[in-house]
């Protein structure tokens, strides 16, 4: 909220799954739905972070002036006469396939398993991938936006994209923080950290052995 401006943001009335929902201008469809207790699944969304729009699991149907588009609810902002459908054959088909893509990486992620049950996704549909990471970017963005440390980042692109700790920063910052660990929907983040730590800034192994 900008304090200087007295003018209140105007309220917009939209429809989500047939229910009328009031939302201030600039609010995303996802936030409006959450306010009205309507569930839209998310994987890369976090309330403390900027909307990212990467996992696309929150894809919904948005109809404006007779045109229906498939949009990501976490980044699409409300507008006059907007009619949102959070479930449809098309939406479910997209969510199912996205889950199947991700389950090839992290078949044991509880979050993915729950959604897989809802959308009938088959965890064995695609060949298993060597990396557990689903690249939701929660760790990378949390470190950059909330902690402002950038101890972890993305490297490479396309199918070769991965997360990587930056040893110079991670060796100083991570052991006292680790706030990103519980955000990870898989176990990959911890693995990546332990790997970086053991390669780049190993703890004195004799000491850790003695402490135990």
């Amino acid at each position, binding site marked *: 909220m900008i304090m200087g401006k007295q003018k209140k943001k105007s309220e917009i009335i939209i429809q989500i799954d047939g229910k009328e929902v009031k939302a201030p201008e600039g609010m995303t469809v996802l936030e409006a739905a959450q306010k009205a207790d309507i569930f839209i699944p998310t994987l890369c969304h976090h309330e403390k972070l*900027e*909307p*990212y*729009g*990467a*996992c*696309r*699991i929150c*894809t919904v149907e948005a109809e404006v002036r007779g045109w229906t588009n*498939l*949009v*990501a609810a976490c*980044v*699409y*902002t409300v507008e006059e006469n907007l009619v949102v459908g959070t479930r449809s054959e*098309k939406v479910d*088909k*997209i969510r199912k*396939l*996205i889950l199947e*893509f*991700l389950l*090839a990486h992290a078949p044991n992620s509880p979050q993915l398993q729950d959604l897989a049950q809802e959308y009938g996704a088959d965890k064995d549909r*695609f*060949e298993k991938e060597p990396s557990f990471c*689903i*690249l939701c*970017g929660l760790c990378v963005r949390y470190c950059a936006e909330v902690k402002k440390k950038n101890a972890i980042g*993305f490297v*490479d*692109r*396309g*199918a*070769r*994209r991965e997360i990587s700790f930056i040893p110079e920063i991670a060796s100083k910052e991570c052991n006292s923080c680790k706030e990103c660990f519980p955000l990870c929907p898989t176990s990959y983040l911890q693995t990546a950290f332990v790997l970086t730590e053991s390669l780049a800034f190993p703890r004195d192994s004799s000491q850790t052995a003695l402490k135990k």
Partner: protein
Amino acid sequence: MKSIEGNPPEPRPKYIHTSVSGIWGKPSVLNNVETWANVPLIINKGSEWYTSTGTERSKGTKLVSLSGNIVNTGVAEVPFGTTIREIVYGIGGGIPKGKKLKAVHFGGPMGGSIPESLLDTPLDFDELAKLGAPIGAGSMLVLDEDTNMVDVSRYFLNFLTNESCGKCVPCREGIKQMLRILNNICDGEGREGDIELLEEISEVTGAASLCALGKTAADPLRNTLRYFRDEYEANIDKVKSPTEKRE
């Protein structure tokens, strides 16, 4: 634009028009150089002069770049409305070694092909878009009868898997899985159901990806499935494809 600002080249997540908020939050106009090159001509000679060339909906001329199995490769400026046949056999000088033409591919890795039977289509944005072959920047890749269209799709997807930034799931994972299936088909390990799976994935990447790259990445695949589905089937059936893969 993100690159100009010094950020990683990833698409902006929000639904904002660049003409409202672009580079450094300022309104920005993003156009091809060719588009800009037309502007002085229109200003100097008037719109009437400019629109006297072309078709009803596509005005003026277009730079096309001819490549592939064609005698004269290079860039040519042609009036809109010229048929593809005139461009290929007139300006382009036809196919080398007297071979037959199989398809003309428009718009590069995110474009589409038209088969020989549609060669009399005029160069026109709408006409070609209807056929699933967008003119795009004007690239025309001419493919002769020896071309395996499954291999063409694979080639483009392989290119795009390196072009994808990897941010959103449908594009990153979808291209990877489609490429895997196409590799199998090309290697003679295609399975029944592969075509249907390709169709399902291409539909989802087309509908749910974050930016235009993901949304159109599967266009050549969808387009070749439209006109050359028999080649996919032939490759899967392990019956020798009418045009055996060239090694």
